[in-house]
């Protein structure tokens, strides 16, 4: 708006300034301000205040939406209570947490609290869990995404209905963690895998579904961490472009792992692979040497005498989660034509029942990393 136009609006406003409902002493008729001034005022609100204001009415929401707020990093999780974590990408050390609970006296909600931990500040807004918290959380997430024009970046799914909701609301998302036993059927698993694109990270905690279920299609995330991963097959890994793969309780055989290593060395597949971790099911302890030999069969390996600059950490989840690798011996190196080194090592867990579980590690690195 030009300054002249703004002035004309203002002058017109002065003419119309007969406020029918005269404000009380503590009141301020915000919506009677000219738009430019109204925006100037609400731009001073913090994240919680913007959210609370914008939920007061459709008009308040549409006003809040007109402002181009700094994009928010929106993250749904639960730590006993469902929580929505918000932060500006540009501001380090400041988190805004909306927490739904009913541990406080009804009359005190909403409660604002701030916790300082070193250089980190956590502002919390406690809202009452009215018994319909899952729907309340969904509505709140949709509202925040709309007002701040920001997508959800990370969701920890702790209740099954969130899967259908996220498919409808935002089927492409950076990071998804699905908590233990949230998925209870093959149908839900298939629907989730087909309809949600997890660009950065997909994590799945143990889930009890039909043991016959298998997938051969890749999971298109940079990083995957799957517990109870019996359903992930060799083609799913070979045809994928994952950089980080962590499979626990895997049904992949020693021969499958050997194929993965050979294919990686040829270089046509698994070109993006940076780290592979496979935890086998329990095998007979006496069978371990054969198992190891099968994994390393027909590979042109060298034994790594010392570290040689190999990193001892792996970035699992978009710089948020860095994993420190076990320091074990021996370490075998596989060299690809492009000079990349694949280091192979393992750990064992021996059980009293005479069984052993092998954790196999394959770390890709170069002398430059």
């Amino acid at each position, binding site marked *: 708006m030009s300054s002249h136009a703004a002035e004309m609006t203002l002058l017109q406003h002065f003419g119309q300034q007969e406020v029918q409902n005269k404000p009380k002493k503590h009141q301020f008729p*915000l919506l009677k301000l000219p738009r430019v001034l109204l925006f100037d005022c609400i731009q001073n*609100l913090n994240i919680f205040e913007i959210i609370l204001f914008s939920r*007061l009415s459709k*008009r308040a929401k549409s006003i809040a939406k007109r402002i181009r707020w700094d994009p928010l990093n929106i993250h749904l999780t639960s730590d006993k209570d469902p929580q929505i974590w918000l932060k500006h990408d540009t501001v380090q050390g400041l988190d805004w947490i909306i927490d739904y609970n009913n541990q406080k006296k009804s009359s005190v909600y909403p409660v604002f609290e701030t916790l300082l931990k070193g250089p980190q500040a956590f502002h919390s807004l406690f809202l009452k869990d009215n018994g319909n918290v899952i729907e309340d959380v969904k509505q709140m997430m949709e509202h925040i995404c709309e007002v701040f024009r920001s997508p959800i970046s990370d969701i920890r799914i702790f209740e099954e209905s969130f899967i259908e909701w996220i498919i409808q609301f935002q089927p492409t998302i950076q990071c998804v963690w699905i908590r233990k036993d949230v998925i209870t059927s093959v149908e839900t698993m298939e629907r989730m895998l087909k309809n949600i694109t997890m660009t950065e990270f997909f994590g799945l905690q143990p889930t009890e579904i039909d043991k016959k279920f298998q997938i051969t299609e890749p999971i298109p995330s940079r990083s995957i961490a799957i517990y109870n991963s019996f359903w992930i097959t060799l083609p799913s890994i070979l045809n994928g472009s994952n950089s980080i793969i962590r499979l626990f309780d895997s049904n992949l055989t020693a021969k499958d792992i050997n194929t993965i290593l050979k294919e990686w060395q040829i270089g046509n597949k698994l070109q993006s692979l940076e780290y592979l971790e496979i935890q086998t099911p329990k095998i007979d302890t006496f069978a371990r040497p054969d198992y190891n030999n099968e994994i390393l069969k027909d590979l042109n390996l060298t034994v790594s005498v010392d570290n040689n600059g190999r990193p001892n950490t792996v970035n699992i989840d978009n710089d948020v989660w860095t994993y420190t690798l076990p320091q074990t011996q021996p370490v075998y190196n596989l060299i690809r034509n492009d000079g990349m080194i694949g280091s192979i090592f393992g750990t064992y867990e021996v059980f009293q029942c005479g069984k052993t579980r092998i954790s196999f590690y394959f770390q890709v690195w170069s002398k430059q990393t």
Partner: protein
Amino acid sequence: MSSTEQGTSSAAPAEPTTAPESAAAPEVPESFYYVHGKDKVVHKVSAGALQHSALIHGMISNLGYTEEQAKANPFPFENIDGDILQMVVDWCNQHKGKPTPPEDTNLPKQKEKLFDLVLAVNYLEIKELLTYCCKQVAMMVKGKSPEEIREIWMIPTDAEDEAAEKEAKKRAGKEAAGETAAAAGDAK
């Protein structure tokens, strides 16, 4: 230091760090202007204080009024209540020639006046004061519940907004009908 330099130094008088009083440039007398609001009460304000207002500063910068001319021609701001203009003038005087601090404790405290103050400050284009006022408006709802925010900022509910819209449409319809009827009467 060489001896020559020492000699030179002692021979020549040291350059004065400040000009002697007698040589100081005579202070330019501060010019004053006069403003009044709706209540016609005239306020005498220095040009320095008025510099905060981009609107007034723009108006006076090329006037070259003498004191008498300025007194005889106060700037009328009929759209600003007298007490609001007084607050603005006070603030401009308090902040004359000073850099404005990030937080201003000299803001008028009366919340019921804040609305008119915001409008006036915006009209007079006093940028820093407007920034403080807008912050103060935002501060009104700090730590408040949604219902308290609704009450403080007088935010109608959706139902109230819808009812008001309906009412406005009805009124507009009536007015339009009245105008048509009047036009038809004129035509006869």
